[in-house]
């Protein structure tokens, strides 16, 4: 049993002017509005992302309901386009990214023994930019002309043909980008400067490493996205012609800029997910992570290589064969470090004493299905295959295996893993396992059949289709509604645990070995590590 650090000792002798009480959280709504506490902010990020996940999920269900049968039944084609657009934008920028920033806020200070994030007031601002951005995004549905049906990639020249809903979307992306950049600055500074004595870089938990690398990626590419949408804005209103062919601009230029952001963005989402899985799998294997140093190196090189493969998203827009070959080779090679990581996770489990609680189940679900998504990515990296499959449901299936089975499963694993530490309450293990199996089965029901739809030639982003695709679309739609309902079970599990869960132990998982488990009591005090622990 490790020693519990005394958090009540006065820190730096400033106790005289803070009313002598900083043990508990303040009460009421203002606690959440004015908070600078990384735990509160992390909680808000996670709830915000869950709400956006449900909003984006309802949009996905609208898409699937329309596609239950060929022909137009429920929504108009224009509204269908807005559904695909905002489902993508909300899930990427509103749900998955904030969820992992929430994990970062909660865990990075705890894992490196810091009292809080380096810039607590900016941290508050980073979060509170998100709700206005979400409202701005949703308000575009109320504007004349409706929301922008341009796809989450916001390609020109479609963007110059949309109503004012496009402008609110652009401003929302600006806000989300600002929030991400400030969050990244905070994360990097915290990791570089605020580590406890003895916590060297190569002793940091893998999750902290993955966020350090991700934050650098964010700082490099979020401004590029901001630039791209700003150019779209000036093209729309201020007479520039960056992407407007009529004024001498180039629509394909937009695609290059967008994917120069977009491909690293894939890794911005995936790398923190790798980090969570790299904490969960060793804990339930009761072994240290296999090849820690090579994991760090592999993650860094994935980050670097992610900058040089962007045009594999645009093989068919017109480029020299030499260009296609270059991007094909580069894309195939990026699979090598990713494969090393999968190998390392499997090797971590090798001869471990494994148990299969809910977090481990989700981590294993991640491992299987993310690998499948990676392989279909490898298939799509081949130019001749991609020419056939681009813009079909095969692509939709591929990236949902990466985004849902990769990032979302890992986020579920993380929530179940740290929930006992965060709240001091234990969730219902049996219900958690049911949630996992329902999610796994329904996920594959939605997306596995979409591989075949794509191979048979069903295009994506359409509200209507040939009757020959009907059966697989119906399986997919039924799966989608099952998946959606399963997430309500997740909400029930969380609320039930918060309300009446059994008290959790300090070290709920006996294989967990990071500072938050070994050095802090459960439930945690409001401020932790005001006196840093010494790491041997």
């Amino acid at each position, binding site marked *: 049993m490790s020693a519990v650090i005394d958090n009540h000792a006065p*820190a*730096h002798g*400033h106790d005289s002017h*803070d*009313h002598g009480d*900083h043990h508990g*959280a*303040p009460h009421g709504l*203002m*606690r959440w509005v*004015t*908070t*600078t*506490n*990384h735990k509160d902010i992390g909680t808000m990020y996670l709830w915000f992302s869950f709400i956006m996940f449900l909003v984006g999920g309802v949009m996905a269900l609208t898409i699937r309901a329309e596609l239950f049968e060929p022909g137009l039944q429920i929504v108009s084609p224009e509204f269908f386009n807005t559904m695909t657009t905002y489902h993508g934008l909300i899930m990427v920028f509103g749900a998955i990214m904030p969820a992992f920033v929430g994990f970062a806020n909660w865990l990075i200070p705890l894992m490196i023994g*810091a*009292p*809080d*994030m*380096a*810039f*607590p*007031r*900016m941290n508050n601002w980073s979060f509170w930019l998100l709700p206005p951005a979400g409202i701005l995004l949703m308000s575009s549905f109320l504007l004349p002309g409706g929301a922008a049906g341009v796809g989450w990639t916001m390609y020109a020249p479609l963007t110059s043909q949309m109503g004012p809903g496009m402008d609110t979307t652009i401003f929302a992306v600006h806000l989300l980008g600002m929030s991400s*950049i400030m969050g*990244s*600055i*905070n994360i*990097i*500074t915290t990791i*570089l*400067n*605020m580590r406890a004595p003895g916590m060297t870089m190569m002793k940091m938990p893998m999750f902290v490493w993955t966020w350090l690398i991700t934050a650098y990626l964010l*700082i*490099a*590419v*979020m*401004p*590029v996205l*901001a*630039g791209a949408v*700003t*150019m779209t804005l000036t093209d729309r209103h201020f007479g520039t012609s*960056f992407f407007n062919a009529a004024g001498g601009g*180039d629509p394909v*230029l937009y695609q290059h*800029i967008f994917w120069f952001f977009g491909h690293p963005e894939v890794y911005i989402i995936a790398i923190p997910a790798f980090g969570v899985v790299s904490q969960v799998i060793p804990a339930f294997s009761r072994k240290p992570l296999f090849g820690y140093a090579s994991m760090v190196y592999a993650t860094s090189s994935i980050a670097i290589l992610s900058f040089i493969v962007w045009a594999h998203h645009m093989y068919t827009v017109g480029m020299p064969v030499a260009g296609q070959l270059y991007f094909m080779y580069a894309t195939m090679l990026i699979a090598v470090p990713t494969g090393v990581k999968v190998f390392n996770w499997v090797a971590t489990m090798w001869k471990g004493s494994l148990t299969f609680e809910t977090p481990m189940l989700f981590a294993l679900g991640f491992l299987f299905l993310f690998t499948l998504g990676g392989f279909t990515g490898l298939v799509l990296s081949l130019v001749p295959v991609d020419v056939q499959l681009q813009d079909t449901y095969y692509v939709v299936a591929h990236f949902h295996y990466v985004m849902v089975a990769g990032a979302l499963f890992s986020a579920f694993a993380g929530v179940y893993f740290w929930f006992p530490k965060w709240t001091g309450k234990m969730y219902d293990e049996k219900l958690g396992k049911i949630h996992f199996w329902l999610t796994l089965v329904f996920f594959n029901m939605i997306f596995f059949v979409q591989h075949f739809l794509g191979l048979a030639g069903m295009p994506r982003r359409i509200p209507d289709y040939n009757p020959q695709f009907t059966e697989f679309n119906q399986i997919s739609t039924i799966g989608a509604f099952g998946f959606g309902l399963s997430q309500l079970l997740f909400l029930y599990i969380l609320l039930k645990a918060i309300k009446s869960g059994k008290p959790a132990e300090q070290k709920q998982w006996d294989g967990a070995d990071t500072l938050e488990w070994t050095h802090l009591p459960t439930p945690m005090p409001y*401020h932790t590590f*005001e006196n840093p622990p010494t790491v041997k």
Partner: protein
Amino acid sequence: MDKLAPVMDDPRRKDNIRTGIILALLAAASFFGFFAKVYFFR
């Protein structure tokens, strides 16, 4: 209002601000650099 997190009086605060400013400049360089590249060279 809650007592600001203890990091505000942390002796490492100065380093934090310096690191933060450097990172903010990096982000700004990325934004304006890309804008300039597209504007002038396309």
